[in-house]
């Protein structure tokens, strides 16, 4: 009678306070049946990684609008790996210039979702990433 629930941490690293996007995603994912842990704005990569481990999430979704994504997204990926939690899939969203996406993917961010992304696209990504793990 096992019922495996997918758990997702939605976190905002960096210093911008624009959390509307993160909250929207959290809410949309809840409506899709996921358990979403939301930790609010201005989280350090260290706090995000500790939270991801304690909450035993399958995914970490990072939202950033300040421009520090090339620094902070890979840092989260690296810290997860260093903590023996490299199996947790990291994806991102916010205002991410197109030309930065290849770099971020190369550094271990599984997907980037910009403005205009539909919930369906994110769910398809989550489901296929989960099935392949």
């Amino acid at each position: 009678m096992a019922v495996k629930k997918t758990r997702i941490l939605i976190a905002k690293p960096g210093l911008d306070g624009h959390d509307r996007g993160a909250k929207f995603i959290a809410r949309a994912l809840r409506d899709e049946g996921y358990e979403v842990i939301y930790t609010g704005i201005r989280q350090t990569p260290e706090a995000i990684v500790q939270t991801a481990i304690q909450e035993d999430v399958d995914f970490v979704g990072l939202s950033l609008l300040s421009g520090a994504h090339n620094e902070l997204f890979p840092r989260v990926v690296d810290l997860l790996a260093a903590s023996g939690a490299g199996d947790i899939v990291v994806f991102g969203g916010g205002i991410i210039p197109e030309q930065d996406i290849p770099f971020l993917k190369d550094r271990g961010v599984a997907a980037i979702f910009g403005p205009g992304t539909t919930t369906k696209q994110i769910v398809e990504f989550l489901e296929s990433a989960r099935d392949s793990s």
Partner: protein
Amino acid sequence: MDLVTEVRLGNLRAIARTISLIEDLEPEAEALVDALYPYTGGARILGVTGSPGAGKSTLVDRLITLERRRGRKVAVIAVDPSSPFSGGAILGDRLRMQTHAIDPGVFIRSMASRGFLGGIAAATGDVIKVLDAAGYQSIFIETIGVGQTEIKIVELSDIVLLVLMPGAGDEIQAMKAGVMEIGDIFIINKKDLPGADKLRAEVEYVLSFKNPVQAAGGGNGDSEGVSNPILMTSAVQDDGIEQLQEAIESYATEIENAGKLEEKRRYRLERELLGVLNRKIHELMDLHIEVSRQLPEWTERLYRRDARPYALINEQIRNFLEERKGDQ
């Protein structure tokens, strides 16, 4: 990775994994809980309950700081409701506790209620055992924001902190059965708001009627010389929290000396065993009577008035018992 050993060593990943296995009702969960059980009993378990927005998470956040100052390892289980429609949940309690996120002596876990009623999740009791066996000395369980009857927390806690705030109802509300009866320590949070003193007076008034011979473990029946403290706090302004912690400490000592803690813990185990038994019987019934498969047909028969509720169920149970006799 041997989960039991790793949990005992305090490996965070192992603790988190074990909790998930329990929550997800994975087949290995029962054996894990049993293997950890002998190492439990060392933690003080504090239930924190109250209406939505009363300030439970912020209070817990402040209490964590003070517990850490006393050198204790702290764990928090924060329960939030699952959506009855999608089964999903937004777990946002730890938002107010994130200052402790990177403290290695603090473990915070959010739990969705997953359809369980009573203010907690079905797995909360077993998750407490994991954290207890992992060596956390103070374990806070924050319930979902409760109304008047979500009182399951009393079956899990050594001490229940009931968080109230001004402006949420008059003394008649306060006299209602249920949640007002389970508090060991009453906290009037947001004490800077108008009406806080009046609320305090009302709580004192209601507590003065308290029945001194309530059943064991039944909340503020801890009377006999042990009175229920009432504290005024403002969690956001970090005001009154030290007094609150002092009150928790002396209350804990008092109930321990009076033999009440032991009594409560026995009561808890009794409730827990009954809970496991109930669940197991349910599972057995479902396996043998195939309730889930047959329910639509039974419902249809009842709807057509072709069957009567008690006769139908009694017949099913009789058949089940007959079958079992045949098995032996």
